[in-house]
Each structure stands twice: as structure tokens, then as C-alpha cells.
């Protein structure tokens, strides 16, 4: 009803709509998977380690992202059906709350990945002092600080989302963090490689070099998945702020729902590349499922 004043071209970029069933399936899968991880870590005392707490933090932020999308869809359906009014103070506040939940999820994901990378870095380069540096209490304190910061920032960003001052730091933070995480992993990678070379150089060693590219593949998967799932949305925010009327930008913004689905896919993929790699966690899952049968 708002567009009657303007003329639309036939070659307009229409919104690419993702079917609601797909949305809900992907979101539900993400929530369930991450919930399982949380339950497993809580139930198994062997998993009460800083490493797993950081993985839990990642699982929580993934869950929040999927939850946001699910709730939003539910509310939109309720709006369409008529249970909720479209204009109203309550809906506006609810909307703001959900926006901040989403930004909280993104920031939480980034900082959790950073914490996981830093934890592994300390494990490798400060190996003998690891248990003194990264105590359980310190890990919990670090997580508390991270989440407090993310919560504050997300509320601020959601309230002031129309200011350029919030959009720019938000979009700069994203590649900066990725670059920092990449540096940490590359450094660890180099150390592992030189260690492998030393082992291979032993005269008694019969090691074969089949695993040379495996580390590169793993690291590429780590960062590639995160980039491919979140970067489209970050670009969307940038374009929405700076060129909403440009036709090219508008065409990019028409695939907004696909970008949202990608974020939920990230919630499904992250547990596979972080949590499920741990044999201890996998055995906890098996125990959980066999016991429930």
C-alpha cells in the first residue's frame, strides 16, 4: 500500500522468497543440534573443560540465531493471521528485542570462534603452562565478559541501527576478527608443520606425507563456512545503509531471506566442524541415545 506513489519497472528485482517449511526445518535442526551439545557437555563431567565451554558458547550463539529466525517467522504468521496488530508499541519493542537477539548471535559467534582459536593457540604455544593460564574459572570469566559485551553492543546497535556510526564498526569488526583468527590458526599450523617435518626427518621414521593438505582443508573449511554464511548478511547491512536506492544494491537486498537461511545453515554446520570432532563428545552422545532407548 505504500508503493502506489512510485512506478515499478517490469524488470524489478522481486524478493526471493524461501518457503516457510524450509525455513522452519533448517531453524529447528540448528536449535536441536546445538541443544544436544549443551546437554551433552552439562551431563558429562569429563567435558567440564575450558575448551568445551567455548564450544558451548558457540552453540548458544548459533541457537540464538536460529531461534530469532523461528520467532520472527512465527510472529509474521501471527500478524498475517491477525492475532497481532501490525502497528503497535508492543510489536515495536518486540521487534527491537528480536533484532538485538540476532546481533547478539552474530557477535557471540565471532567472539566464541575467537575464544576457541585463542584457547587452541595457548594449548600449543604455552603447553606446559596451559592448565595454569586457562583455568576453569578464568574461562568462565572470559565467557561472562564476552557475553556482557555482546549483549551491550547488540542492544546499542539495535537501538541506533540507523546511525552510520554503528553500522561501520559492526562491519569492520567482522573482517578484523576473521583475520585475527586466521593469523592464530596459521601460526599454529606452521608449528604443526615444522613438527611434522621434524618427525619425518627422523631416520627411523616411516611416516608418509599423505596428510599434508588435510590441515589446509580443515582450516579452509573452518573459516570458509563462517565467511560464506555471515558475509552476505553483513554486506546486506552495508548496502542497506549506504545505497538503498541503487538498483544493483536493491537487487542484492532482494535475496535477504536466502542470506538469513545461510545464517541458520551455519548453526547446523558449526557443531559438525567443532563439537563433533571430539571423540569424548561423540561417545557422550552415543551414551545419551542408547540410554534413552
Amino acid at each position, binding site marked *: 500500500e505504500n508503493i502506489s506513489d512510485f512506478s515499478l519497472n517490469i524488470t524489478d528485482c522481486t524478493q526471493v522468497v524461501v518457503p516457510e517449511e524450509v525455513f522452519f526445518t533448517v531453524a529447528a535442526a540448528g536449535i536441536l543440534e546445538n541443544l544436544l551439545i549443551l546437554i551433552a557437555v552439562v551431563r558429562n563431567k569429563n567435558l567440564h573443560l575450558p575448551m568445551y565451554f567455548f564450544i558451548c558458547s558457540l552453540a548458544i550463539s548459533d541457537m540464538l540465531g536460529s531461534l530469532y529466525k523461528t520467532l520472527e517467522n512465527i510472529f509474521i504468521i501471527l500478524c498475517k493471521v491477525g492475532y497481532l496488530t501490525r502497528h503497535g508499541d508492543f510489536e515495536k519493542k518486540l521487534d527491537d528485542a528480536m533484532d538485538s537477539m540476532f546481533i547478539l548471535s552474530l557477535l557471540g559467534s565471532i567472539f566464541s570462534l575467537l575464544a576457541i582459536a585463542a584457547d587452541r593457540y595457548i594449548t600449543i604455544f604455552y603447553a606446559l603452562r596451559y592448565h595454569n593460564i586457562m583455568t576453569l574459572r578464568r574461562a568462565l570469566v572470559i565467557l561472562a565478559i564476552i557475553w556482557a559485551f555482546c549483549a551491550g553492543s547488540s542492544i546499542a546497535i539495535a537501538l541506533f541501527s540507523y546511525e552510520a556510526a554503528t553500522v561501520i564498526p559492526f562491519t569492520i569488526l567482522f573482517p578484523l576478527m576473521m583475520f585475527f583468527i586466521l593469523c592464530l590458526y596459521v601460526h599454529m599450523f606452521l608449528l604443526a608443520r615444522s613438527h611434522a617435518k621434524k618427525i619425518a626427518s627422523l631416520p627411523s621414521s616411516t611416516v608418509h606425507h599423505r596428510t599434508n593438505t588435510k590441515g589446509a582443508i580443515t582450516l579452509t573449511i573452518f573459516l570458509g563456512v563462517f565467511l*560464506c554464511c555471515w558475509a552476505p548478511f553483513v554486506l546486506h547491512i552495508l548496502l542497506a545503509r549506504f545505497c538503498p536506492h541503487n538498483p544493483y544494491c536493491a537487487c542484492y537486498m532482494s535475496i535477504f531471506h536466502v542470506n538469513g537461511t545461510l545464517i541458520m545453515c551455519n548453526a547446523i554446520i558449526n557443531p559438525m566442524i567443532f563439537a563433533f570432532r571430539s571423540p569424548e563428545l561423540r561417545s557422550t552422545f552415543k551414551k545419551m541415545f542408547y540410554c534413552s532407548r
Partner: protein
Amino acid sequence: MCAMRLISNRTSQQALSNSDYTWDYEYYEYGPVSFEGLKAHKYSIVIGFWVGLAVFVIFMFFVLTLLTKTGAPHQDNAEISEKRFHMNSFVADFGKPLESERVFSHQMAEESQSLFHFCINEVDHMNKEKESQKGPSLESNTHFQEVPKSSGMFEEDLHCLTKFNIPNFVNTEQNSSLGEDDLLISEPPIIL
């Protein structure tokens, strides 16, 4: 995302008298946008973005693969100290001070005997030594299993070589060549 609607409401306010806060599945009204006279394809940003992202990821993969491929394994044991030098220069290049070396040399003084054992024993023996050392600080037995075995070995091997000059230490951790993957695939402590 509804925050975006605030933006679109502000821009469309120029044409509309009332700013309705509507909750709609359609986030954007493309009214003000004219699609006439486009020089490039209308989805060019989408295509360009995804192509750029794919190129970047593949580039990153190749760079990482190249990092693994430089240098063939040397059979000459005398070159081990040279490799240690290279490793340290890598460390220095990354801006990390050789603090870990200082730390380790300090700890070497304290734990030199145990590290000597690390150097010449196999992994299981190594773990037992560690367990006896770190027993009081561990919370449980399984904690011990989480003690950085393969990653700790990296440091200990390096410093064994520096301090004890044992090029032939019988630390035939053949499956520690998987260590390169371990620390990236799962948590470093567990040798897969």
C-alpha cells in the same frame, strides 16, 4: 531484519506523510528504485560478491597448501638445529616474542630431568611422567587425558632438541604426523 525497516521508513518518509511501523514479510519497498538504463546485469553485485568470496576461499586454501609443501624432509640430522632456527624465525616474524622460549628455558631449569625423560621415552611413558608431575593440579584422571599430548609434544620436542641435542630421540610418534590435523580438527590434546 526489522532494523532495516527503520532505514526504509526513514527514506520513504520523504514521500509518505505517516510513518507506519509495519511488520511485513516484505522488508523493502522497491518503489523509489528505477531499473531503467542498467549497464550491467541487475544481479551483478550478487554474482560479483559470491565469485569474489569463492576466489578468496580458494586462494586461502592454496596459500595454506603451499605452506605445507615448502621443503622436503631432510635426512640430515645436523639440519635439525637449523630447522629450529627457522622455526624461531617464523615465530619472530609473526611478532610473537620468543617469550615461550624464555618461559621454557626457565621451566627447563625446573623440569629438566622430566623433560629429558620426555625426550627419550615413548608417548605412554611421557604421559605417566606428566601425570606424576601434574597429579596434584589435575582435577580428575580424565583431565590427564586431556593434557596436551600431541601439542605439548611439539614444544617438548623442540626444546629437547635445543637443550639436549638429541637428534635421535626415540620419540617415534609416527601418528603424530596427524598432529598437524589434530590441532585443527579437534582439540589439540587428543591424538586421533
